[in-house]
Structure formats: structure tokens, C-alpha cells
């Protein structure tokens, strides 16, 4: 079988220049990264093994290095680094494991996940609006993840003394969420999941690669608490209908009525939908091309009693 790599053919040739440019930029922590140094081919195969790092379980996750300002115990070991790529602890369990785990814990848990966050537009817009909520961007493409990581670092440095938002509540990590979502989050941990402009995978043969499916929705339901919401937006009508079809068919979700999220009124749901419509990179592209945007929200319902106990 031919193995697909993450990179475009011909990309390695550009690499040295790119790396040098990024290095120069990296020396200045406060400098915003430039996208052109982080471009990557549009699709990564969600079925391949890649060389991903992921924690064995949510308990093994090093959240403190992603959100150092929220670190439970500020220890020497915890490097003051934004959204570090080294996400999981060592695989061998040692007696000092407990101590290490506590240095990896944060005072709060992540409650909002932006799945397939791309260049992170949504994260940067949500951060100051929900300053008390930990928000995580998850992205499978390495370079794109690095861009978001570098941008968070720069924004944290720039806004260290800001009172409108210090960007300490957002982080990014590289993950294939289609395989490993339950390795990061415990049951019912999240209250919101964003699926913004997912890759449409037009061909029928590729539908299995779509980030929404009846079977994957069970995993979203697992990490979402009852009452929590999945926010979806796309410019592709067929994908919109696909997502609606697959969520409506899933007994753990019910569609949220437009009256709850549309318009200029108050409320966190409306606020989040407004940000989702305008702030993601894809959303902006669609805007420029006068494309349609299809929005659909789904609420996670309570699990029913067991069949024999109802």
C-alpha cells in the first residue's frame, strides 16, 4: 500500500528557507507568525497512523504545559510554554507518577473544543470573549498546528498585561480527533464542540473520512455533557445536509431551533454562533466569495434509562 505523507510533493525543497525564516521569527517571541511559512497540503489522511503523540488516557494528559497560567502546582518541571506539542507523559509508570501528574493538572478543565481548528481564527476570537473558559484547538496537520501554537505564544507575550484578554485560556495540539478524542477528554467533560467548515470529502468513496458520521457522533456525545452543544457550519450544502442527517438520526442529539441561536440577541449560544460565522479563516474566505453559510446546532440529550429499567 502506498503511504500518504503529510507533505506536498516538492515541499522539502522549500523547507530550508522556510525553516530559517521561521527560526528568525521564532527568536522574537512576540512576533506574529506568517502563514506562508506554515502552508501544508489540504488533506491529511485520518486513517493513517501518522506519528502522533497522544496520552494513554485523559489522566495522562499534560494540561499544565498547555495552560501554564492555570497550572495547579507551579513546579520547576513545568516549562512556561504555550500549547506545547509534547502532550503526553512518559509511558512507563513510576512511583513519582502521581507527583508528576499533579504538576500536569490545571485548576480548570478544557470545556470548549474546536475540532479541525485550521489556522485558529475561532480560537483567537473566542479567547477574549470567554476568558474564564479553557478552549482547545485540535488539528491534524502539523505545520498548521505549529502556526496556531506560535501565534498563541506571540499573543500571550503581547498581551501579558492586557485586561481585555491574555490568551492564557486557549491552546492547540496536534491530534487526529477521529481516532483519539476519548484519549484527551473524560466522559461529559466538554460543554461545546465546534466543527467549522470541515473538509467536505465530496467523493462517496471518501465519505468515511468525514468528521461527522453516525458512529463518530457517539464519541462526541461521550465527551459532551448532557445539555452541551455541537456547533457546525459549512459552505457545502450537501455536507450540511449530511451533518444534519447524521446528528438527527443519532438518539443522543436533538437539533437546536434557529430562534435559540440566530440574530443579535444576548446569550452565549448566539454569541458563539456570531463568532463562528465570521471569525474562522474558511468563514472569511466564503465571505469574500459571497458563498452561503449553513449553520446547524445539536444539543446533547440526557441518556435514557436502560431498556429494562425504563
Amino acid at each position, binding site marked *: 500500500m502506498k503511504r500518504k505523507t503529510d507533505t506536498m510533493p516538492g515541499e522539502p525543497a522549500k523547507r530550508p528557507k522556510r525553516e530559517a525564516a521561521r527560526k528568525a521569527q521564532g527568536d522574537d517571541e512576540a512576533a506574529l507568525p506568517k502563514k506562508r511559512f506554515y502552508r501544508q497540503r489540504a488533506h491529511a489522511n485520518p486513517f493513517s497512523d501518522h506519528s502522533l503523540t497522544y496520552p494513554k488516557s485523559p489522566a495522562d494528559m499534560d494540561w499544565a504545559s498547555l495552560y501554564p497560567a492555570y497550572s495547579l502546582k507551579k513546579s520547576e518541571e513545568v516549562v512556561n510554554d504555550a500549547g506545547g506539542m509534547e502532550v503526553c507523559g512518559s509511558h512507563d509508570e513510576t512511583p513519582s507518577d502521581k507527583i508528576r501528574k499533579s504538576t500536569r493538572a490545571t485548576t480548570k478543565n478544557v470545556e470548549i473544543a474546536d475540532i479541525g481548528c485550521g489556522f485558529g481564527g475561532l480560537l483567537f476570537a473566542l479567547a477574549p470573549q470567554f476568558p474564564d473558559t479553557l478552549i482547545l484547538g485540535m488539528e491534524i496537520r502539523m505545520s498548521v498546528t505549529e502556526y496556531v501554537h506560535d501565534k498563541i505564544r506571540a499573543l500571550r507575550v503581547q498581551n501579558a498585561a492586557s485586561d481585555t484578554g491574555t490568551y492564557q485560556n486557549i491552546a492547540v495540539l496536534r491530534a487526529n480527533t477521529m481516532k483519539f478524542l*476519548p484519549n484527551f477528554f473524560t466522559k461529559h467533560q466538554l460543554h461545546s464542540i465546534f466543527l467549522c467548515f470541515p473538509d467536505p470529502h465530496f467523493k462517496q468513496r471518501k465519505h468515511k473520512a468525514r468528521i461527522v458520521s*453516525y*458512529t463518530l457522533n457517539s464519541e462526541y456525545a461521550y465527551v459532551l455533557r448532557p445539555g452541551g452543544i455541537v456547533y457546525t457550519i459549512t459552505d457545502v450544502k450537501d455536507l450540511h*445536509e449530511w451533518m444534519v442527517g447524521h446528528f438527527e438520526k443519532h*438518539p443522543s442529539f436533538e437539533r437546536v431551533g434557529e430562534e435559540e441561536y440566530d440574530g443579535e440577541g444576548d446569550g452565549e449560544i448566539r454569541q458563539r454562533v456570531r463568532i463562528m460565522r465570521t471569525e474562522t479563516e474558511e468563514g472569511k474566505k466564503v465571505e469574500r466569495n459571497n458563498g452561503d453559510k449553513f449553520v446547524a446546532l445539536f444539543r446533547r440529550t440526557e441518556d435514557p434509562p436502560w*431498556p429494562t429499567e425504563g
Partner: protein
Amino acid sequence: MNQEQRNSAAQLRMAFPYKCLAACTRLAADGEDWALFGASGSTLVVQSSRGTQSTWSTEQNVENKPDHGDESVEGPSGKRIKLSHPTHQKNNFSSIKISNDGKYLIAITAEDKSIRVFQLSSDWQLRQLSERCMTRRPCSITLSDDNSTIFCADKFGDVYALPLLPSPEDERNANPHPEDGPKKYAPSASLSTVHSGRNRKVLEEQLKQAAKGRPQPKDAPTFKHDLLLGHVSMLTDVVTATVGSRSYLITADRDEHIRVSRSVPQAHIIEGFCHGHEEFVHRLCMSNSNRLISGGGDTHLYVWDWLSHTLLEKIPLQSAVLNLYRNQSGLNSLVPEREEDFRIAVSGIWNVPSRTDETDEILVACEGVPALFKIKPETPSEEAQTLVLNGNALDVTFVTVAGANTAIVSIDHVHEPGHTTKTRENQEPSRLQLFTTAQNGEWFEDDRLKSTLEWFSQDTVGGQDTGESARVAFGKEVQGVIYGVENLRKRAEIDAAVSV
């Protein structure tokens, strides 16, 4: 294979080892009656305690297949033995299960992705009732407690429920495409969508298609099969479990996951994950006391309180295999030079049935290892007993004879013990070994059933002198059918290195 090799393979008349075994006991008016079933390549072999001997082959039962008449030869006991043929695909059995009521046998064949259901007659003959061809290769099947439903886990990560015996109504209401969204076909791309040139091409094609109606995938099954749950990974095993009135489905995958879901009709609800494996999971086994034992590419076997998703114990297995190789003369050469590179892959975990139900005893096999390891969870101090075998362990099933458990073990009689590629010079004549527990709980080799099972266990013309090339070719073919667990291990990919 060239003509000459084929001829010598024909002379060879060798039988495949039993990749899987199953046994069933019925209480007849005049005492116990049990039968043993084995899958030997593309053939199912049946032997009962009262003398039934029969076979069923996927090749003999293929209709409209020209040129298969000379494909099998008659063995001494009237058994038909399939020969390898390079030009058409053989359908080899990869798993067999018997329904809890002893009335049906369910078998999966890998190459044609089929689930076959057989009725077992009063004298244990197999009569095929159905053959259902799935879209993806089934990896593991199990049955609901009431025997009404087959749960089939496949290579693409999905679990489907199929009625064991489809009713005419099921057939009419068959849902050919549960995984698809909107039924009306419309092109998924539109001119306003912002996408690449490649996508524009797809759109053009789709617009052309739209005129013709929705493109139907060629092999969409037309029988009832309901999608229950799915992992984005290759599924390796599925088991059911019951606590009080609650039933569960537990699934394992190549990405280290063990998932606990509710069973039908709520199989969309995930109750939790048993996190902890660091390599692929290959086998799940429920113990007598309702613990879950899991194993795969890790050095240890894991014991779980699966209801609370907590790991109770890790039982060292790699070291047990190494100890065996070190201490057993004849196996010394298998001790690796660098022990840290030594890998094991659990190929089977079997719960030893018990009357008292509360004591757990487990037998474990690793791929290409000529032994079974007896494990008693919760008694770590006890030295694990190793049952050394004459060939690599393949499958185990149990029958109760005169109140004692007998373990029937199938072994690889084609390859050298400890090897999955090297064929033997002199074939081991028997494809089975039999063990019984003694008073002290130790297993010992017990040949009381040997004569009853002789026809079943012997390789038809084992030992006949044949050419080296035929032997090697046959060994390769067998290897492809009975081995492959180690291939589930992830290889370090280089994409990280290139894409940073």
C-alpha cells in the same frame, strides 16, 4: 506456483492446521453427546463423540465455479482436502462460533467477507442456511445472549447487527445503506463553493452523475444489517457482557482502545473506555467472574474491572515466553540476542469454564509460540503454568468428559515450533493436543480422547516425502491464513520527520 509445484502439491495432500476450533455438548437421553468443529483452510471439519465425521468446504459449495472438480482430493477417511490453486481465490475460515443453544454454527471467511450460518442437525451435520457477504472484511463475530442477533465487527471499525435467521420481513425491509445520509441524490459540490481545481473536477463528474441518479456502490448488501457503532480504526474483537439486566458490547481496536458501549437497542451510548494499552489490542475475554482480560501487542496481559473502567492488574507475558525459551531445551535457539527487541503478540485468550463460576482461570497463546500460558488473575504469587506444545498454539476449545474439563488445542503442524515462516522437514502428524486438569489444578496431557479424535486430528498423508518447493509453497500459503497478528503493530512512520 508453476505446474510442477502444483503437481507436487497435489501429491502432498497436506491439510491446513486448524485456525479455529469450537465444541458443543448436548445432553441426550442416553448421556452426553459432544462434537468438535474445526476450520482447516477453506474446510470445516466435524467429529462427534458418537462417531459423526463430516466436512464442508467453501470450494465444493460454490456454484457455477468451473474447473473446481479436480481441486480437491479424497483423503483416506473420505475427507476432501483442498489444494492450493493459483488462479482462483480460496475462501478460508477465520472464525467460527456456535450459538449458546447449540443449534447453529456461524463462520466467517476472510477473502469473500462472508458470514455463513449453518444449522447443526441431530447428528451434527452442517447445513448452510445463509451466506451474507459484507462490504468490509469481518474481523470478529459474537452472538447476543438470546442467540437472535449476530454482532459483526469489521476491518473498517464498524459493528453491525444481523439477525441470525433473517425473517422474510427482514429481507423485505432490508436497509441497504444505513450509513448514508440524505437519500435523494444531489451533487455535493456546488459552483459557489470555494474549492480547489480538483474539487471542481469532482463537481463536474457529479453533475454528470446527477442525471443518472445516485451512484450505487457495487457491493452494497441487500440483507438486513444495522450499523450499531464504529471506531475510526480496525476492529479486532467484540464481546458481549451482562450485569443484571444490563447488557453491553465491548470492542477493541488497533489504536489501543477498548470501548464499553450499551448493547442494542442503545448501542450508540458509550459508557466508557478501558484506557491503558500502549500497543494494539487483539483479543478480549470475559472471565467467569465477569472480569475482562485483554491482550495484543503489549508485553503484558491486562485485567479490568470493565464496568468501572479500571485496570486491576497487568500480568507479564513477554517474560513468560522468554522464560520458556530459556528453560526448554530445543527452544533455546529462540532466545533473542537483544531481549529488549523481543515482541509478542497475543493471538488468543480463553476462559476456562468452571462450575463454581467465581474462580478465574485463563489460557493465553501468543502468535508463533509453541505453548499455552495458564493464568489465574488475582493470584500473582502463583507461578504461571506453561503448557509446552508440539507446535505453535492456534486455538483452544473445551469439552467436559466425565466431569473433567478437557482442553482441545490446535497446533501448527506445518511450521517449526517458534517460527511462523520456517516449515518443518518432518511434519508433526497430529494437529491437536489434549489436556485435562488434575486434582491440584495443573494441566497434564491426556490422551483419553485421542482415538475418538484421531480422524479429526491427523494430517491425512502427513510425512509423505514430497519436494522441498511444494513444502515451502504450502508453508507460505498456510502462513498467510493462520498468522498475521503481529502485522497489526504500528510501524514508526517517517512522515513526522519529513513534515515538520
